[in-house]
């Protein structure tokens, strides 16, 4: 009776989530516990995206407002590449973390694949480490299920999803501990640990800066896009597995444009003195900026105690902020 209630609940929940592809909906119904974790993972990816691009003209703002699933950038640009990679990595990260927290039932014992079909027996015989492979596999099944159209964009998205997961996998750290006689190193156990997601964000940002433009190679008979190659004259190189790839040039994200998915920079805060992307010249695309003067009140000289005790003074100062016209 309980399971049917859960199943009913799952049905309702899964149908209510907007933006799910049919196959994703099926996964959601079969694993309702996982969908929450997946949602958290995708949200984590979007948050990280917004953090990484907080000073850019494009600041990931279009994503994650209504739902964490299914929204996409229309243009196959670098930015799209980044969002796909970070979402895929976020889902894999969240699933793996949830496994080690015990929040997901029947997480893969990595030994299952080695012929121990009875999970309980396998655990007692060989132990296991809830590892990244399960998270990656899950991310692959769920996130990649979104790509249903057979076009160039699909290839690009799948490549970037895989690149994000690959980056995560490569950053897994191996840590070891000796525990022989009297703690000597005659026996040593090693395990892998998940990297911090912020670290993944920084790496993917670098990959974003070095993203490569690709074009589609169509197989001769059916004219179906089959694989990607680096867009250069006389080049038949495939992009690297961990490279982010894009097929179209990015718009400049200055003006609001629904067709490119750009929200424009109107009303964005900028820094008058900075020569970088967050500087007013760059940010406002030469439209100029408004200056507001106001008294800023903030908490200062704070004294923190773990975890949640903060004692602060209140300071105030007259400052000015600049927003793009």
């Amino acid at each position: 009776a309980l399971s049917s209630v859960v199943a009913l609940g799952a049905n309702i929940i899964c149908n209510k989530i907007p933006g799910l592809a049919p196959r994703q909906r099926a996964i959601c119904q079969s694993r309702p516990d996982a969908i929450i974790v997946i949602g958290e993972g995708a949200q984590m990816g979007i948050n990280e995206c917004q953090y990484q691009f907080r000073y850019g003209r494009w600041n990931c703002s279009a994503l994650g407002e209504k739902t964490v699933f299914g929204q996409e950038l229309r243009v196959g640009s670098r930015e799209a590449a980044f969002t796909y990679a970070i979402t895929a990595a976020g889902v894999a990260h969240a699933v793996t973390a949830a496994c080690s927290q015990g929040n997901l039932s029947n997480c893969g014992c990595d030994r299952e694949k080695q012929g121990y079909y009875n999970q309980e027996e396998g655990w007692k015989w060989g132990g296991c480490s809830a590892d990244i492979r399960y998270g990656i596999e899950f991310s692959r099944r769920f996130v990649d299920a979104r790509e249903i159209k057979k076009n160039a964009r699909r290839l690009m998205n799948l490549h970037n999803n895989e690149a994000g997961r690959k980056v995560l996998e490569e950053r897994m750290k191996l840590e070891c501990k000796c525990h022989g006689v009297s703690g000597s190193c005659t026996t040593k156990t090693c395990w892998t640990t998940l990297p911090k997601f912020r670290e993944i964000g920084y790496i993917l940002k670098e990959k974003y800066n070095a993203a490569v433009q690709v074009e589609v190679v169509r197989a001769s008979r059916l004219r179906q896009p089959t694989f990607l190659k680096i867009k250069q004259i006389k080049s038949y190189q495939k992009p690297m597995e961990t490279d982010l790839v894009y097929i179209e040039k990015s718009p400049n994200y200055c003006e609001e444009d629904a067709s490119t998915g750009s929200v424009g920079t109107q009303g964005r805060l900028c820094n008058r003195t900075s020569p970088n992307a967050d500087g007013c010249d760059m940010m406002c695309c030469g439209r100029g900026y408004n200056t507001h003067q106001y008294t800023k009140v903030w908490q200062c000289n704070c004294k923190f105690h773990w975890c949640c005790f903060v004692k602060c003074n209140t300071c105030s100062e007259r400052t000015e902020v600049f927003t793009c016209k």
Partner: protein
Amino acid sequence: VPYMSVKCIDVRKNHHKTKWLMPWGPNHCEKLKDFDEAVSRQIEANDIVFAVHIPLPSKEMSPWFQFMLFIMQLDIAFKMDNDLKENAEITLDVSLAYRDDMFNDWEEIAHAIEIRKLKCTFGSPKTLESEGRHYDCDFLPFMEIGSVAHKYYLINIRLPVNERKGINVGIGEVKDIRLVGIHQNGGFTKVWFAMKTFLTPSILIIMVWYWRRITLMTRAPVLLEKVIFALGISMTFINIPVEWFSIGFDWTWMLLFGDIRQGIFYAMLLSFWIIFCGEHMMDQNERNRLSGYWKQVGPIAVGSFCLFIFDMCERGVQLKNPFYSIWTTEVGTELAMAFIIVAGICLCLYFLFLCFMVFQVFRNISGKQSSLPAMSKARRLHYEGLIFRFKFLMLITLACAAMTVIFFIVSQVTEGHWKWGDITIQVNSAFFTGIYGMWNLYVFALMFLYAPSHKNYGEDQSNGDLGVSSGEELQLTTTITHVDGPTEVYKLARKEAQE
């Protein structure tokens, strides 16, 4: 198995009775996503409990795991105005409980307040820009239990804050606590036990046989024979599979006991090498007493005693408090280091002595070999026997030692798995059993080949015409063992003859 702790809120306002907080399952605790939530809800640090259930859902622990070892990793985020202090110490209020049934109440095993030093580094520059990045912290020893007698364990950790006493002040922003559990694989334990159960009787039988050989002789056993016998005893002591009891009983001292047994065996083996070399010195010195070797055996005794004390301090105290570790306090670390250094010095001293003795033996051998043809038949046989059995032992000892060292290096380099196609071979486990079996074989061979012979003893000693008709194997045995028996007789005879 990595475990991530779940942050729970202790909703009861009065902490008069310990209640256990479960991270998941039917009556899990009220969870907290992150600490920003806690700030807004005005939850105090003392009400936050990091809960870890061992093992993960739908699994259970088994006594075959033999021991549990836990390592703690703290995720500390960098914040400009809440920086981690130099040499910060974190105070943990930890408790451990068990139950054997999903629906029983938790029974407490241990509760302790532990202080651990934080050793963290920060990779990026400490600017506002890198706020939110994490420190890179060394993992901390957390807990060690010598037996896994229960099915489910639960760990609750609190980080109490007391500003006046300076407890947990300046530890940065602890985001998460992660634990890594290490235990022996059940399969390995089974193979290991099977091996021990098989090896015990074989060593025991050869020991009885060996002792019978010695008692058959008309003289009292010489020192070398006693040492070999003692080596056999210590090997049996290691072999006896008392671990079987740990399946049925909750004996947490098994780890300590195992360490002691191994220590005794190593000490015995080292002493044996020294005495064996000494007995083959061929310089007519009378050495048939242990006191003759005090210089060499002394360091072994001191060294093993130091390690024993160290082990008692670490694992002995852990019997009482599984969260204890000698490395966490300043004094403890110094003490532990002192013990280990003394033991290391002793070991170096020992090896110097050993190398020196081996060198001496080889020098004597080459000296004797040049004068061999000039000797009488009996004497020649005596020396040839000595030389042969020394070289033989040198060879197998070196081979065994080389194997062990190679194993050690390989196990350090590889990560425990070698992949051959689809089959993952657990090299470490295979090596362990292999090396263990090899040293057993070594002791076995020692006792078998070096047992004194009772054959041809009475009539042949005068002409030295040894077992010519017997087979090769027997010839080897008799040649190399005969000499040891009649050494004293020969010596006396020679002296008389010279006079």
